[in-house]
Every structure is written in C-alpha cells, then in structure tokens.
C-alpha cells in the first residue's frame, strides 16, 4: 500500500503531518482532517441539540464539550443552577480530565519515553504498571458512565442539570474504589518524574480559568502575564486565523502564541493542587519546558482523583431527585468556558425566542496551542543542529505528542 497510511503522526488524536523546512528552520503542522463544520451543523437546530452534537467533536473529551455547551447556553438563557448540580458537574469535569490524562499518558505518550512501539507492549515489559493503568482506565470510564450514562458521549447532562443522578450510595462505592486506586495512581505518576525530558525552555504566556478551587469552570481567564479577561470577552482577546495548510484555525493573543492545558494550570494554580498532587509537583514547577506537559498531566491525574473524592463528600445529603431545574426559553446570547483536559474550551451560542441556534462559535484548547507548538518546533530546529534530520523530526513529533493535541477538536 502507498505511503498514505504511513505519514500521519502516530499516537495523537486526529490527523496531522509534520512538514519541516530545514534551511529556513521552520516547521509546519499540516492538519489534514476533513472539514467538520460543527459551528455550522448546530445552526437552525434546537438549543437542546447543541450539547449532544458538540460532544461528537471529540471522542476523547466529549464530556468537556457537553459541559462547555451547557455552560454557554445557560448563560444565554440566564439560568443559574443550584450548588449541588454545579458540584456534580465538577465531578464530571474532573472525571473527564482524569480519563483523558490516563489515556494520553499511558497509551499515547509513554511509548516515547520507554522506547516501545505501543502501550500494549507495556503488558510484557512492565506488567505491574500495565495492570495499574488498566485499573485506572476502568475507574475513569466507569465514573463517567455512573453519572453520565455512558463513558463516551454522555446522555444525562442537559441544560438546567441532569436528566437523572445516581443514588448517593453508588457514589460512595465509587469513592471507595478511587481511594484504593489513589496509591497506585501516585506510583504511576512518579514514573513521569523519572523520565528524561528533552531540554528546551521557551518563555510564553500561560492562560487558565479562575475558579474557587483548582480550575474546572469559571467566568474569568487569568494569564501568567498578569492581565485577566472575562470569558464573555474571549473573542476580543483571542484571535483565530486560517492557514492554507490546515483545516484547523490557529489562535493568537496580542499577536503571539500562548499555551493552555496542564502546564498552564499547574504553573498558574500550583498552590491549589490537592495534597498528594502537590507533593508530586514540589520543586518541578513552574516550567517553560513543553515536554513537561506530560509531567503536569501526571500531577493532575492524581489531583483530579483527589478532587472527585472531596466533591463526593461535598454532595452528601443533596437531593438527587432534584436533578434539574425548570427555566424559560427566550432569545439571548452567551459564552461559556471550562477547563477541558487540554485547556480552555470556549463555546458561544446565540438563540432566537424559540430557542433555535442562530450563531455559534467554538475555540478548542488545541486550536489555541497550535501557534505555540509551531514556535516550539522552530526553536527545537534552532538548538538541535547536532542531530540528524530524522532525529530532529522524531523529536518534533515527540514534542507535538507531549502537547497532547486533539486534532479532531482543533478542526471542529
């Protein structure tokens, strides 16, 4: 068969090809996904379809898209949900990042550091770790299933709350399993502190959400450069441009690239990490080395497991039968933002008086990181003259994987 099957970057979510011009020290990430047009697919449809349709942007982080859409729609309809519903959402968002990080860390990124072809080889090379990984994957999948109905493309989350919430004792059983697995997760996360990360530092701006705890959902975006902005003003602060070689748009802020996701969150909100995650992260952050995004993800995997345990304690006694509030459908517009596994995820909807969607805008974390990925790749080309071209390309691919790009998300 022709090369066509071979030259997509492997072990990343979606289809991207790396194109390097060594003479100009310039790297391009050619995004080859077909046009997906999600911002158009929801137009003319009922607002209730938006969470269902936008979940299909990504099979790795559908829960993140579901809640970003719900957040934006509730802002458009002036809906404020009670605290326990907001807490259940935070459990789901924590589960989403836990699930996505387990997938990326162990199934996609680890082979780079252990020099193996795929994570399945880990079963032979280190069966003890592989068993831990399978246990964590099961735990994450089953947590989302417990509250969301299924682990991919959840069904219970709706505007106004949930169609149904599980009995609290089921959450307690789940919490028990989380507590038992936490010690294994910490062991697995420690592996990432031992890996050798290529040396590369580049100053850049980091963005995350302002939240009462370590960020999950919020109304204000904070920056390592000091200046924050409101989520409702995101379109004034983040610009998108179309590059001819890519069906994904590239974002910039003040004309420059920036970074969102695990490194950004750990760098900016280090002091809010839960206890075991903080112990793991001590002395390792802040960092300007993008390869260490994997390390930040390992820290966050532990953090979000601890967070789910805390939140399950917090929702004790809440009335699960009161899972959804009633509201009026009316015309309006609203932006929403959540911390998806890979960073800030913005959704924006405009509705007419019948609740039909007349405008939509979505900016995904990977679209925001693309400019920074290319700038880092250019930097690697400048400092890696001693390596062969093949080795340089391999390292750039490893860099791209470290960012955990979600190409399918970036082409939404």
């Amino acid at each position, binding site marked *: *068969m*022709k090369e*066509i*099957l*071979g030259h*997509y970057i*492997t*072990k*990343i*979510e*979606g*289809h991207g090809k790396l194109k390097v011009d060594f003479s100009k020290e310039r790297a391009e990430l050619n995004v*080859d*996904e*077909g*046009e*997906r*047009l999600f*911002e*158009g*697919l929801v*137009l*003319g*449809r*009922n607002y209730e*379809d938006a969470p*269902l*349709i936008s979940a*299909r942007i*990504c*099979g*790795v982080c*559908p829960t993140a898209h579901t809640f970003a859409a719900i957040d934006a729609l509730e802002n458009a309809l002036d809906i404020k949900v009670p605290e326990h519903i907001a807490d259940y959402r935070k459990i789901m968002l924590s589960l989403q990042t836990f699930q996505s990080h387990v*997938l990326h860390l162990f*199934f*996609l990124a680890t*082979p780079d550091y252990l020099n193996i*072809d*795929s*994570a*399945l080889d880990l*079963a032979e090379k280190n069966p003890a770790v592989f068993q831990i990984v*399978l246990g964590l*994957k*099961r735990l994450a*999948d089953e947590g989302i299933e417990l509250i969301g*109905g*299924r*682990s*991919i*493309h959840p*069904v*219970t989350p*709706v505007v106004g709350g949930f*169609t*149904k919430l599980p009995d609290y004792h089921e959450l307690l059983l789940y919490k028990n399993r989380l507590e038992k697995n936490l010690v294994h997760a910490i062991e697995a996360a420690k592996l990432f502190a031992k890996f050798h990360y290529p040396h590369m530092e580049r100053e850049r701006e980091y963005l995350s959400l302002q939240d009462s705890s370590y960020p999950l959902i919020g109304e204000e975006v904070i920056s390592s450069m000091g200046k924050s902005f409101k989520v409702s003003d995101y379109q004034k602060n983040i610009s998108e441009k*179309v590059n001819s070689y890519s*069906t994904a748009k590239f974002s910039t802020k003040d004309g420059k690239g920036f970074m969102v996701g695990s490194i950004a969150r750990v760098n900016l909100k280090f002091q809010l990490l839960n206890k075991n995650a903080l112990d793991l992260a001590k002395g390792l952050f802040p960092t300007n080395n993008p390869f260490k995004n994997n390390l930040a993800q390992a820290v966050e995997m532990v953090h979000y497991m601890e967070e789910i345990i805390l939140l399950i304690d917090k929702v004790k006694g809440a009335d699960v039968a009161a899972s959804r509030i009633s509201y009026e459908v009316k015309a309006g517009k609203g932006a929403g933002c959540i911390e998806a596994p890979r960073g800030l995820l913005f959704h924006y909807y405009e509705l007419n008086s019948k609740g039909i969607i007349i405008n939509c805008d979505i900016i995904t974390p990977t679209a925001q990181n693309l400019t920074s990925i290319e700038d880092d790749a250019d930097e690697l080309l400048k400092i890696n003259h001693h390596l062969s071209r093949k080795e340089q390309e391999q390292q750039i691919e490893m860099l791209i994987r470290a960012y955990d790009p979600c190409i*399918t998300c970036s*082409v939404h």
Partner: protein
Amino acid sequence: MKDKIKVAIFDLTDCEGCELQFLAFREKLLDLEKSIEITNWRLAKAKNDNGPFDVAFIEGSPLTLDDIEMIKEIRQSAGAIVALGDCASLAGIPGIVNPREREALARKVYGKNYELAVKRVYPLSHYITIDYHIRGCPVTEPELEYVVSSLIWGKVLSPKPFPVCLQCKAKENHCLLLEGKACLGPITKGGCGALCPSVSHRCYGCYGPAKGANIEPFKKHLSEVVGRDEASRQLHFFITNPSMEEENKEKKKA
C-alpha cells in the same frame, strides 16, 4: 495453532470515539491478542504495517481526497471490512446538513473563496463494499466484542433486528413518547440496552434506523407531539440523513 488474525484499525475524519472502545476492552484486549494481531493502528502504534489484513475496521467519514484514496487501498488489501460506527456506516454527524448547506458553511468558517475537496458526505458503502456494519455513536463495547470474537471463531454475524423499545419495555421504563417527549425509540435500531430512556433522556436515534422502521407515519405522530419543524430536525440527526436524501432525489430525477 493457526496464524493470528491480522487486524487493522483505521480512522477517517471523525471524533475517534468508536475506536477508543477497543481500549475499553482493557484486560480482554490482552486475551484477544492471543488470537489477533493488530498490525496497523495509527492512534496507538508507531510501527504500522501496510497489509494485507484479514479484517480492517474503518471509522469516520471520508471527507478528504486522501480518505477516499485510502479506503480504496484498504479494500484491496483487506479480507473483510467492518464499518465502525455511524459516521462510517450512515454518514453520521457530518451528514446532518445537505450538500448545499455544507458548501455555504465551509465558506463561512474558512473564507468566501474556500472550496471543499469532497463536496458530499457519504457513508463508506458509497465508495467500497462493506462486509459488516457496527452501528452506534459511539459503538458499544459488548457489540464490538461480539463482532471481534465472531471473527476469531469464524461465526456468522447476525444483525439485531429489533428497535430500542424492545429492551426499554423489558426494563419496565416509563414510555417517554406517551409522556409527550420526542423519543425515537420505536424507529431506532436496538442493542444499546435502551440507555437513554433508562436515564430519563429521550432516545435521539444514535443507532440509526431500525430494520423496517416505518419512518413516515412515525414522523406524522412526532409532528403532533413537537411540531413539524422540530420533528424533521430530530429525524435529521441519525435516522434520515439530508446528504443521502438529496442524492436519492437526484437519482429519481435522472
């Protein structure tokens, strides 16, 4: 022992949620590895073989020229091809708009001179012969396991010819349609265990139409429940696909 069955897993333009269900096998994947060998899986492996394969699973919609060329190549080198999920099998989510709208939307997103390389969204079967379809958005792990184990044991695959309502009734759920909600259970292919109605969410048809589904009379009923526009929008999700409807209309004219 006979040779391991060579399996490939390919993804076209889509969300990759269906292929992730292979990872939901977890320990079972190691058991399966005694009988099958995954020789090409871009999402999970660095070294990928170009075939031949005994079975190729293909997920997603062919929306780029590369996608279309690739599936034709795969047809040449694979014994059996399984269309994995609704995008591959039914044109899925990208098919919920008609071709004219699609062109206009692409210009809105990418600029007014933008040309779509592939103008229409079709399921895989428009381009190549498909041996088996697994429905679902996403496909479920039990059904995927059933298909993979049947392939290993050489069993004949039998489709499930019942709608969502069958399993819903068996679970003794309240009927959402009778409560005045736009539940698509009666016309949607079953096999999901009536997942949505069991958590008080109406079925929105994510397994596609059931075999022999009487869609027109159902649409009439649904129109009485939620109005004609909304009924038609709900069906234009997974049940009927504007992209395909357009194609059928043009065929009739010709």
